[in-house]
């Protein structure tokens, strides 16, 4: 039997040579000609054609002068809604959690539990969880549905269309903009979505740079800093708009870094020019409410929050232990902060922030909670919930300046991806080399940029 199979193969090779080139062209053309005929027989225009919304809207959303401004406006709107709607529920959640924490801790003590158990369980694990839920849940519950509406409408391919020219100049693919949009939710999801890019080179670029889009775990940090430091200087009526603009600026900076790094990669380790780009712009569809709620709340919010809580619980315990185990007259946390201090100072931050980032490697969401828990230390008398209380702690007690805030925003935007994202890079590339590059390159860039910004800031101020 294999003999006869081989003879068929040989014959087909012979026939292929005889047919000459363009075989595929002729076949596809024949199929399409047939399809055209079938359609002419079975599809009729009824003439009852209504206003063609799609084309009108498309001409507006991708127009020469309005396309890009409208895109920024939509992005700003999503952030503004998130900031506006999330602040109050965040405080309410925090108040409720911390009232519960002191009550529960008090009960533990009255039952005669040892001090370390009460501390570990309530002031460590529970506090970590409470922080993550109150800081993250409200913004996510607003941001994800708003974003899913844009996705469901079919707007995202238009973003890729509008921005493709920039990506082409950077040697990358326009669909990278789509994967970045997914990265707003979660960088790991963004990296998985790079599968839509066919060219392996451009897909790798998209994977390695996805981290420069601030994911939902980093938004609370950015929003908090924008509200406390940037918007505080403006009248309250404008505050939320200013805060949203500040976040948009950071996002734009992230897009700038994405393009810059893509460009650099295209000229070094991933040499090549931009390849073919074919992107279908599907018609706009009316979003279905149920589907949006399901996708954004179940698939995204619960998933991301669940992951954050899984890492927050042990992190809370670690912080509590670091803050309460003494060695050589001071706590372990104090030792670590002392050790990291000079490095932190050099890049315009401090030891506590760096320690928070190290503890938060499993998930970026817990950076702010970790930072605050370290600042408050073992005293933990204060239930910090509202932004003005956080401001009091940071500025009055720990000497934060505008420069600290700006550098922290930069560091938060650029630093290494979280452990889940790194694992996803490995799963998608199956290469230690690319995974290492994907982890270390952003870290190096973050340190370099923050160092420069700190030096520049100190010179000017």
């Amino acid at each position, binding site marked *: 039997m294999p003999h006869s199979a081989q003879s068929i193969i040989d014959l087909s090779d012979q026939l292929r040579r005889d047919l000459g080139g363009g075989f*595929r062209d002729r076949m596809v053309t024949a199929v399409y000609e047939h399809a055209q005929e079938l359609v002419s027989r079975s599809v009729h225009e009824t003439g009852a054609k209504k206003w063609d919304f799609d084309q009108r809207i498309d001409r507006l959303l*991708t127009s020469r002068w309005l396309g890009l401004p409208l895109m920024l406006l939509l992005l700003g709107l999503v952030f503004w809604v998130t900031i506006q709607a999330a602040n109050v529920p965040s405080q309410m959640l925090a108040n409720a959690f911390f009232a519960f924490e002191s009550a529960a801790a008090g009960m533990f003590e009255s039952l005669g539990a040892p001090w370390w158990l009460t501390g570990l369980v309530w002031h460590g694990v529970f506090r970590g969880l409470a922080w993550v839920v109150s800081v993250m849940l409200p913004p996510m519950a607003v941001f994800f549905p708003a974003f899913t509406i844009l996705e469901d409408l079919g707007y995202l391919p238009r973003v890729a269309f509008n921005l493709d020219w920039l990506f082409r100049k950077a040697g990358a693919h326009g669909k990278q903009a789509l994967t970045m949009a997914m990265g707003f939710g979660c960088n790991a999801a963004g990296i998985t979505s790079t599968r839509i890019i066919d060219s392996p080179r451009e897909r790798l670029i998209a994977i390695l740079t996805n981290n420069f889009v601030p994911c939902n775990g980093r938004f609370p940090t950015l929003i908090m800093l924008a509200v406390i430091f940037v918007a505080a200087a403006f009248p309250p009526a404008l505050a939320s708009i200013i805060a949203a603009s500040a976040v948009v600026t950071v996002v734009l900076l992230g897009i700038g870094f994405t393009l810059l790094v893509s460009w650099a990669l295209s000229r070094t380790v991933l*040499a090549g*020019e931009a390849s073919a*780009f074919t992107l*279908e712009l599907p018609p706009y569809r009316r979003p279905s409410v149920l589907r949006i709620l399901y996708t954004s709340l179940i698939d995204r919010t619960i998933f991301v929050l669940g992951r954050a809580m899984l890492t927050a619980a042990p992190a809370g315990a670690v912080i509590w232990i670091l803050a309460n185990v003494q060695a050589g007259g001071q706590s372990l946390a104090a030792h670590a902060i002392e050790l990291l201090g000079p490095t932190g100072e050099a890049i315009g931050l401090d030891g506590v922030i760096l320690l928070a980032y190290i503890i938060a490697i499993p998930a970026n969401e817990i950076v702010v909670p970790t930072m605050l828990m370290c600042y408050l230390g073992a005293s933990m008398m204060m239930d910090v919930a509202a932004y003005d209380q956080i401001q009091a702690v940071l500025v009055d007690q720990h000497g934060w300046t505008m420069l600290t805030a700006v550098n922290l925003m930069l560091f938060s935007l650029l630093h290494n991806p979280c452990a889940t994202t790194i694992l996803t890079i490995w799963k998608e590339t199956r290469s230690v080399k690319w995974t290492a590059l994907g982890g270390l390159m952003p870290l190096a860039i973050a340190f370099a940029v923050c160092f420069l910004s700190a030096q520049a800031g100190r010179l000017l101020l």
Partner: protein
Amino acid sequence: MITVGLLLGLALGAVALAAPRFGLVSLWWKFRANRERARSEDALKHILAWQHRSKLASLESLAGALRLSAPATLRLATRMEQSGWVRSKSEGIALTRSGEQRALQVVRAHRLWERHLSDDANMPMARLHQAAENAEHTLTRDEVERLDAHLGHPQHDPHGDPIPGADGRLASIDAVSLTEWPVGKPALIAHIEDEPDPVFQQVLAAGLRPAQVIQVLETGPERLVVSVEGSECRIDPAVAANVQVSVASAADLPPPDAVRLSNLPQGACGEVVELGPACVGFSRRRLLDLGLTPGARVEVALETAFGDPRAFRIRGTTVALRGQQAEQIWVRPLAEPSATEVGS
């Protein structure tokens, strides 16, 4: 305590040395075997190249090409003779039949890999050769065949050189140097020599690419003037000597009364005539699958702030294409807008 540490260290060391797949010994053997394969394949290619120039390679030329010492070259040649790939003659080294087949397979792997890097990764022409030089020795026969099928059985590599078939047959190219081409007659660029590199870079800088149709406007000992894609460029004859051209057939010429889709203004309609010959590989297949076959109707629908890409209405869908792809699509402009677009 120290003894335990020492023993543990020794044990770890032994494992690192002797582990079956990633141990140092096995890695060393693998490295040796790969180097041996690369050297003998490079030697085969060298001898084949000389044979194509009707010359026989010698031990000296081999040593020079592979940058090996004389004794190492002799050892290599001996081993290759034992494998039955080469025969030493009095005037030099000749390939046996199996040696020639083997050499052609290496050339095939090299040129297919260049094609792959160019089509799939859009690697710049200037970097293809070196990258393929490393890859050609690592590909298995099966991988080469898969690559061939994946690329749609290309006939030529990105430089225009013919790719040997799986059965080792090599199409000959019937081309002459651009310097010898008569003025006025359309010429098809059949091959661009990629060595030496500075000359190759000058050819690329002049905008010349394989499969292009050009015309010599003026020739002389000092300079050559050619028209490329509607624009004139001047090249040094020494550079032009590295460009091989052949007679352009009707199929190579752009279709009459057709324009590039990229030149169609916003809102205009056209009928696809053909996809240009430079549009190859995955990109060509994708355009065909999207319905850009001859006879299809296209309308320029949207343009971005930067003017590129643009979106086209094709068979009831809207598809965005970059200028460099729209350039490859030849269309015949149509006067009236398509029926389905009335009212918008």
